[in-house]
């Protein structure tokens, strides 16, 4: 489609796409033009002048900035001649007039574009003898980022990022002329969820990240590429470590998932891995105390108990919760362990806060992240992407802001994307079905017409716990009936939920997107032997089963249901009632602190394996650190228990597990480590060939109704919360908003609420005091409480709420 033009670069003729920038065209043809301000993923500004090249024009040769001029037919560009060289040297001499030569104490030293280009293109000398700009250094511009204004070369990369990409331009050029600087508004910090990207793209050491500052020199770091594991989009990352300690994570540019950008959670959320609180040895409860024991002893204890319960009550006495944080290999081992060793389908990686497993794993018209770029309309009826799926937020923002895609947002309150929405609808929590009926009946014609487009991507999930999980399926069903081509992106929380479901960590699923009891079972049985053929219990039912004694033994794998379940009390009661609890985890948490046996597991970046993201894209995660103490990979722990129980898994190496998956799991046919390491670095979307898919039957539009009057509760997650990994990542944990209740100014007036003052919030499932935030983003009648905050209480799922001012 794109026409090409013929141009000359340094005497060589090339065909390049029409309309491309000279700098891009030259780079694609192997000629690197030096630059500071230009960034492939942002609009050009021509700010730094480093990319000057000489172009033949009707008025003779002239210097132009290669980042702002587009190629033309017959154009002749010189990037290396004497005029260009003189210009480049002059620009560098000017930039270094004010830039301090403090490279020895600068974090950027060794990987600094200014340092590198001064070396490769600079004059090597300076005529500048005057005094350089002098500023207080460095000043914090947010809790995570420091600014050294002396080093800044005013390239506008950080300001463009925050304006064009993340949509929170809280830093901008201030003042003018020789005193121009980047800064925030006084007392209004650069508190962006994406602030770390500015540190990564800063071409000098002006912006540095607090967690990494002075921790290492770049040339001392070991590096490995991997996938980010804080949300289900799995951005491409590079993990850098020194002496087995992970020191930082940077984004890797990749068209498929993240364009090189990362949320601060993906970037700085690794601190928990090096936490002092990591479990390093198996723990066994003796006389009410947890006692450290050796692996052999711990595994014997667990295996004996499993044997005992199995003899007495069989597989139905077991339940398995978790597995969404590990690799596919871990998940597969857990799935096989549950079916083969424990003999149960009571297994679930979801935490009672998710859409149906068949909808998540089996929607055949699943969207790719890159479909957002090419859609006509995007409908987001899901969590606030900025809070729960920050990488998707960036992609959706780009689609709406830069690519002109129509964006429809349906949510109980304003979301991070509302400023870019073509249409937005706010509804009372629990009123989703009523609103859907209205749309179906044509009450909102502008939305109906936007949905009747040629290509529509629907991002669906639960906006809050009050939403019926079936609502998302109904939304998808409605759009499927209206639009031309529809792609569905069902959202789930916990990084490898999609991988875990694909490995069969659902009560009604088996590896490879096969339903329990379906024909696919038979081929799996050949490899696995005997296992139950009727669907098991989901997380909620497992916990209820523990409570009434039907289930005697619970295996928790990287799960903290007390904090993660919408109604924490259900998990708390169940764990108290449980006869025997075994936990495989990184930390002690509120759910396993009273377990009978706790086995220390390896975490992210400590083991190799595959993971599957929201698109069904399978990518590799790699190890760079050996992990603390005696911690082991989930799959190897499970394999050892299974051996002792006498119903072995036959799994000996992560890589061979992947091979077994590629053989027995239909959707994963042919997906091996070799394929991903050598052929498909961006991963592959499964199934590679159109192999078996679950036949998902969409539900009708009918559903429960919301209360029409009074206050309704909207409980939803924020990016930073009191989750167990966040708790052990101090840089981010302190940014959690805490126990807050957001009220519309009108409601606040009526209730006598004042900003910052405590309010008592009471629901069917809990009550507690929350500090009031008066907030126009929250519509009248809606009460927003961020979920799982340090110092907060669990309020459950029922939208009926009472809010009163706390006196005194």
């Amino acid at each position, binding site marked *: 489609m794109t026409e090409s033009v013929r141009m000359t670069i340094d005497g060589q003729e090339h065909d390049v796409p029409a309309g491309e920038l000279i700098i891009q065209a030259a780079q694609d043809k192997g000629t690197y033009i030096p630059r500071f301000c230009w960034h492939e993923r942002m609009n050009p500004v021509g700010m730094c002048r480093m990319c000057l090249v000489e172009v033949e024009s009707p008025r003779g040769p002239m210097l132009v900035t290669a980042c702002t001029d587009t190629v033309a037919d017959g154009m002749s560009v010189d990037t290396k001649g004497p005029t260009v060289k003189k210009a480049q040297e002059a620009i560098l001499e000017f930039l270094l007039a004010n830039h301090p030569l403090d490279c020895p104490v600068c974090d950027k030293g060794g990987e600094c574009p200014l340092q590198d280009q001064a070396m490769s293109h600079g004059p090597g000398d300076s005529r500048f003898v005057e005094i350089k700009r002098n500023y207080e250094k460095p000043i914090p511009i947010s809790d995570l980022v420091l600014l050294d204004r002396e080093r800044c070369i005013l390239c506008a990369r950080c300001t463009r990022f925050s304006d064009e990409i993340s949509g929170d331009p809280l830093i901008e050029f201030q003042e003018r002329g020789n005193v121009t600087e980047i800064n925030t508004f006084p*007392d209004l910090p650069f508190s962006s969820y994406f602030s770390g990207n500015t540190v990564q793209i800063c071409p000098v050491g002006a912006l540095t990240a607090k967690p990494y500052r002075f921790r290492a020199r770049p040339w001392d770091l070991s590096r490995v590429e991997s996938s980010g594991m804080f949300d289900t989009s799995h951005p491409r990352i590079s993990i850098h470590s020194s002496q087995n300690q992970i020191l930082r994570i940077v984004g890797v540019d990749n068209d498929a998932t993240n364009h090189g950008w990362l949320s601060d959670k993906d970037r700085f959320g690794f601190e928990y891995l090096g936490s002092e609180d990591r479990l390093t040895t198996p723990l066994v409860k003796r006389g009410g105390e947890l006692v450290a024991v050796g692996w052999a002893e711990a595994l014997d204890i667990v295996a004996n108990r499993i044997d005992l319960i199995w003899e007495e009550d069989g597989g139905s006495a077991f339940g398995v919760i978790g597995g969404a944080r590990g690799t596919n290999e871990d998940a597969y081992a857990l799935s096989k362990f549950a079916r083969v060793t424990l003999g149960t389908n009571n297994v679930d990686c979801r935490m009672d806060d998710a859409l149906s497993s068949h909808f998540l794993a089996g929607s055949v018209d699943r969207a790719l992240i890159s479909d957002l770029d090419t859609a006509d309309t995007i409908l987001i009826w899901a969590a606030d992407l900025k809070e729960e799926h920050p990488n998707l937020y960036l992609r959706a923002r780009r689609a709406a802001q830069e690519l002109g895609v129509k964006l429809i947002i349906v949510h109980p309150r304003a979301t991070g994307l509302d400023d870019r929405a073509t249409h937005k609808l706010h509804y009372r929590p629990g009123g989703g079905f009523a609103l859907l009926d209205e749309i179906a009946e044509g009450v909102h014609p502008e939305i109906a017409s936007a949905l009747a487009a040629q290509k529509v991507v629907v991002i669906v999930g639960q906006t809050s716990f009050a939403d019926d999980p079936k609502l998302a399926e109904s939304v998808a069903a409605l759009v499927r009936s209206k639009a031309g081509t529809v792609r569905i992106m069902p959202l789930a929380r916990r990084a490898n939920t999609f991988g875990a479901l694909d490995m069969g960590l659902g009560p009604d699923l088996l590896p490879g997107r096969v339903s329990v009891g379906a024909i696919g079972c038979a081929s799996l049985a050949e490899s696995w032997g005997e296992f139950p053929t009727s669907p098991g219990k989901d997380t909620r039912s497992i916990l209820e089963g523990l409570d009434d004694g039907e289930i005697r033994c619970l295996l928790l794998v990287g799960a903290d249901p007390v904090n993660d379940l919408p109604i924490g009390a259900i998990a708390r009661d169940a764990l108290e009632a449980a006869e025997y609890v075994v936990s495989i985890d990184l930390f002690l948490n509120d759910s396993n602190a009273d377990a009978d046996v706790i086995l220390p597991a390896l975490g992210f970046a400590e083991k190799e394996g595959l993971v599957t993201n929201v698109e069904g894209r399978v990518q590799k995660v790699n190890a760079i650190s050996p992990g603390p103490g005696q911690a082991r990979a989930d799959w190897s722990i499970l394999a050892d228990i299974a051996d002792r129980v006498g119903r072995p898994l036959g799994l000996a190496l992560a890589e061979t597990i992947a091979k077994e998956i590629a053989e027995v799991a239909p959707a994963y046919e042919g997906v091996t480590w070799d394929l991903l390491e050598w052929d498909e670095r961006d991963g592959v979307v499964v199934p590679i060939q159109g192999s078996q898919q679950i036949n998902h039957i969409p539900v009708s539009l009918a559903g429960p109704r919301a209360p029409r009057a009074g206050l309704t509760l909207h409980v939803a997650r924020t990016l930073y919360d009191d989750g167990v990994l966040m708790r052990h990542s101090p840089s981010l944990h302190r940014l959690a908003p805490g126990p807050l209740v957001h009220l519309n100014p009108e409601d606040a007036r009526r209730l006598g609420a004042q900003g910052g003052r405590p309010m008592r919030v009471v629901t069917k499932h809990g009550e507690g005091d929350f500090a009031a935030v008066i907030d126009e983003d929250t519509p009248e009648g809606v009460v927003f409480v961020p979920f799982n905050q340090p110092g907060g209480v669990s309020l459950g799922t029922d939208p009926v709420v009472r809010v009163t001012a706390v006196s005194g």
Partner: protein
Amino acid sequence: MSIWSEETQVRAKEIISRYPEKRSAVMPLLYLAMAEDGYLTDEGMEEVALWVGITPAQVRSVASFYTMYKREKTGRYLVSCCTSISCMLLGGDDILHAVEDESGVPHGETDDEGLLSVEHVECIGACGGAPAVQVNYELIEGVTSEKARDLVNWLRSARPEVVNTDEMQELFGGVRSFDWAVSEVDGAIGPYPAFQPLGTVGTEVGE
């Protein structure tokens, strides 16, 4: 919710309605904010940000770029002496020194009373009538050191509600660039640039 007076809010709405994108109204609204508080406060800039839908950092970026947005307390009369080429050649620096000397206010500062601020400025577009001085951006051309001192004393004693270019030209000016220019009856009521309808009094042009 706005920190501005009813009158200012009406003006802000009217100004915003003139632009297809409301953020384009940031500059005139900054003058409103100055008029409201006497100078540009942080609160004023935050208010502008709310009105035009950009962040305070972006508003401050604009405000700090232009010298006529005063982010510090400015006197009731802002005396701006031009020291660019034409004025400098014809004694602009002498005029500045005369104003500083007579008022006791060094350039860039304001007297204790809050009456006079003195500044030296780059070209104010009156090269034909150099050396030139402005009071609250109302122009006086062909000024001498003597007349400049008179001007300072006049501002101190007469304390006019409105300063008007024609009146001051008559009292303290000399050679004008264009003495055939249309007479300007509007004047300035404070140290912010006059534009309709803010900061000007008297009849509209053509009336």
